[in-house]
Structures are given as structure tokens and as C-alpha cells.
């Protein structure tokens, strides 16, 4: 939509370059045939991808290490501090060992009606329920404590895309997207809105265009906020206060991509799902000297 202008503006920004793509559309073991939904990267640099009702684990070079099936279609994936793998699904969360052996399944058709993000903070597990359009705080035993973002006029976040994404920063603050309001909002664990930034606009690259953007989010080690947008698809990096730091324009993705999940690794590389090509694009930050 605004590739040229984006690139021009991005000239003054930090930049990322595509270093690798992982997986792709196909019937092969390391490929996805129909859906690639979510991505996460562990501390060792292994890439966990969820789609086609499977979890597929790739090494840093993009070779498939192993894969396993999930009970229901997976919509997100996360690791707890102990290294267990959580896959969010409609109506439930499945918990696996890194090897793929299932440890447990946590069912709640009402409060976990569509799990699109999972995060951990101290003794709590936070879950984004896209159909309930809110975040839900549970204790580690699965006991529900409170909802976050539900108590307002619209009875939740505005997520016409069907995807609600959040992350928890180093200070324990929840950073969550509200695409219908074109905002990134911050909440406390008790559900108090601490602040927000972001606005609609199609002229300035730091604004969010379309009906409902951004759609997906990740936090880097430095506390930068990485988001993706749809129509046209792009990837943007902001600091915690909303200052645009870098932008990767639509030419990097298929134009029909929507809800492109994003993850950041320890080195600051960004992993972005192309939901049409069914690839994971890996972007590395360009060092200023290079």
C-alpha cells in the first residue's frame, strides 16, 4: 500500500534484513499444507511453529528437528520458565515437554474459548481468549482469578480479526493490542488500564491503518515492541513509549497475509509468519556499522 513511502521514511530508522525463511507450503514433513498460525523461539534458538494441528520444531538453520500433533488446531505457542511448551487451542491449552510428550491438557470451553496468546508472570498464567475478547488470569493450578480488559462498554478488546495478542514485559506489565482502537495498551495484572499509545492513520508510518491494526505482537529483550499489521502486511518495531524504531514493508510478505504471528529471539532477530506462503521469515537487525 505504501511501500515506497515506508522505505523512504524507514531510511532514518533502524533496519532489518531478511536472513532466512523457514518452512513453506507443501506436503513435506518440514512444511505446512494449509495453515501456519504461530511461532515462538526458545532460548536455545529452536523455532517452534504451530499450524495444520501440529507443532513443528526447527533448528536455527531451518531444518525440522521433530514434530507432533495437537488435539485441536493450535493458535499460539509459549514456553514457561521450566521449559514446558503450551499450545493454545479452541477450548483448551495443551502442555507438552520439549520432546512433544503431552504432560496435561487444561480444558475450559467458556474461559478458554479461543486461546490466541499465553504468558507467564510469577505465580500466574495469563491467557488471551479471542472469542471472549479479553485476557484471563489464572494461577498455575488453573484456578481463574480475574479478567483483564473485559470491563468496558465494548465488553472486551475489539478484535474483528479473531486474534488477540499480548506479552508481559520485564516489569510484569501486560502489553496488549487493541486492534479496533489501533492501540497498544498496558494493563496491570489486576486489570487496571495503565496507559496506551497508537492511533489510526495512513499517512505516517508510525500510525496503524485499516479497520483494525496491529494484529500481533512480541517483546524483545530490550523491551521493544514488535507488531505486525495486515492489508498491507508490515512489521514494525517501537520502543516502549511508541516511538517507531524500524519498519519492514509489505514487499517482504504476501499481500493477503493476515494475523502474522511474530516472535523475537535472544539476539534480537525477529521471526514473522507469512500466513499465505506458510513460511517463517527471519529478520536480523542491521548493525549500524554494516
Amino acid at each position, binding site marked *: 500500500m505504501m511501500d515506497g513511502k515506508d522505505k523512504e521514511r524507514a531510511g532514518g530508522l533502524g533496519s532489518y534484513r531478511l536472513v532466512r525463511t523457514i518452512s513453506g507450503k507443501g506436503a513435506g514433513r518440514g512444511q505446512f499444507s494449509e495453515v501456519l498460525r504461530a511461532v515462538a523461539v526458545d532460548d536455545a534458538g529452536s523455532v517452534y511453529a504451530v499450524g495444520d494441528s501440529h507443532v513443528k520444531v526447527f533448528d536455527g538453520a531451518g531444518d525440522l528437528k521433530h514434530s507432533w500433533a495437537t488435539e485441536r488446531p493450535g493458535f499460539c505457542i509459549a514456553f514457561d520458565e521450566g521449559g514446558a511448551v503450551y499450545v493454545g487451542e479452541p477450548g483448551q491449552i495443551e502442555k507438552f515437554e520439549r520432546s512433544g510428550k503431552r504432560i496435561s491438557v487444561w480444558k475450559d470451553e467458556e474461559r478458554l474459548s479461543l486461546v490466541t496468546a499465553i504468558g507467564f508472570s510469577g505465580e500466574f498464567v495469563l491467557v488471551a481468549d479471542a472469542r471472549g475478547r479479553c485476557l484471563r488470569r489464572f494461577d498455575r493450578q488453573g484456578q481463574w482469578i480475574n479478567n483483564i480488559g473485559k470491563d*468496558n*462498554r*465494548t465488553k472486551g478488546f475489539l478484535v474483528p480479526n479473531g486474534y488477540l495478542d499480548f506479552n508481559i514485559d520485564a516489569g510484569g506489565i501486560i502489553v496488549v493490542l487493541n486492534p*479496533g482502537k489501533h492501540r497498544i495498551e498496558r494493563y496491570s495484572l489486576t486489570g487496571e488500564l495503565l496507559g496506551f499509545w497508537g492511533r489510526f*492513520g*495512513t499517512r505516517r508510518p508510525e500510525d496503524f491503518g485499516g*479497520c483494525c491494526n496491529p494484529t500481533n505482537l512480541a517483546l524483545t529483550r530490550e523491551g521493544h515492541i514488535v507488531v505486525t499489521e495486515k492489508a498491507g*502486511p508490515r512489521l514494525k518495531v517501537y520502543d516502549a513509549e511508541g516511538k517507531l524504531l524500524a519498519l519492514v514493508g509489505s514487499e517482504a510478505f504476501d499481500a*493477503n497475509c493476515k494475523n502474522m504471528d511474530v516472535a523475537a529471539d535472544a539476539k534480537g532477530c525477529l521471526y514473522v509468519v507469512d500466513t499465505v506462503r506458510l513460511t517463517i521469515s527471519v529478520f536480523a537487525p542491521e548493525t549500524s556499522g554494516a
Partner: protein
Amino acid sequence: MTADPIEGDDTMKRGPTRRDVLGHAARGAGLVAFGGAAFYLTSKADADGVWVIDPEKCINIRLGATGIEACEECATNCVLPMSAVRAVNDFAKCGRCCICPGYYEVTSDTGPDGLPTRKLCPRDAIERVPIGEVDPEDPLNNFYDYFIDESLCNGCGKCVLACKEPAGLSSLRLEVRYDLCTDCNRCSIAMVCPEDALVRIPADPA
């Protein structure tokens, strides 16, 4: 045309002439031919059809056509003064967005209220109504219904193109309004549709 059979010129009773017999035979043959042809066609006939827009084909609706201008053939080619094709909002699929790309010209300047300043519909045929527990202060805090005034809509498809996936949820569609469609044998929109998206399907009204 003196060779044509013409009416006999008297009322005198007489037996069947050779010409009468030939005439009966020819009529019988004609009747059999017409009856046979009609029967053959009936075996592959259908109840009357209707013109519909195939959303898998229409470039304004189908996924995978990006970076294009809306195709406005439906608006300009119908034989009716206002096209029988109109935009329709399928409310059950609508996200009730505050900033509907089918309603707003999203690339126009953003106003002080944070909303685009221009509407997309060239005929201003879409009405935007806040619904639910309305917050009059903050427009972003509401859901909205989008009603299409069918007396203004001419089926240009601009809103449909703007609302389609992935930008929107494709709740806006173009449909042939059967109460308006003259059901032309030769649909003049179908003749020019670049995607051959106007197709005839059997009608089976409830």
C-alpha cells in the same frame, strides 16, 4: 405467393383431396417434430434461473486480488437506470469496526476525532450507526452497524473491495437484487464482466 395453400373457394362437400392428405401429413410431422424437440429439451430443462454474482470470481469480492481499483462494471452496465446489483452488508459477518474501510476513505486525512475525514461511497449510500451501550465521547469505544441505503447504492463495489479479506471481514458483498433484476436473457453486465462472475443458477424461492 400463389404457391401458398389458400382457402378453398366453395363450401361444396367433397372427399379429402390429395392436397388435404399431404397437408395432414405435414402437420402431423410438424407436430411430432415440435413435440419431440420440446420433450428432448424438457429432459434437460430446469426451473427458471436467476442471475447471481459468484463471490469466488468477482474481483471485488474474491481473495487474492490486491492493489486494484474496484471494478464498477455492475454499476454502469445494467439495463436499468439504477443497477439491479447492490451492495449488501451481511451483519452476521460484520466486525462492527469503528473505522470501517468500506465506509471511510481510509487514506484521507485523519480528523481531530482520530477518524478519517472522507467517506468512501461516492453516493453516500452507507449509514453508520453506533450500537450497544454507546459512548458519545469516544467514537473508538463503540460498535457500529453499517446500513446500505439501497435507493442510493448503484453497485459500484468500492465498499465491497475495501471490506474484503484480509483488510476487512468481507461482510459487504455485491448481490443481484431479484426484486429489481429484469432477468434479461442477455444480461448486459454478464456480457462485460471481466471475471465472468455473473452466472445463472436455478432459482428455488422458498
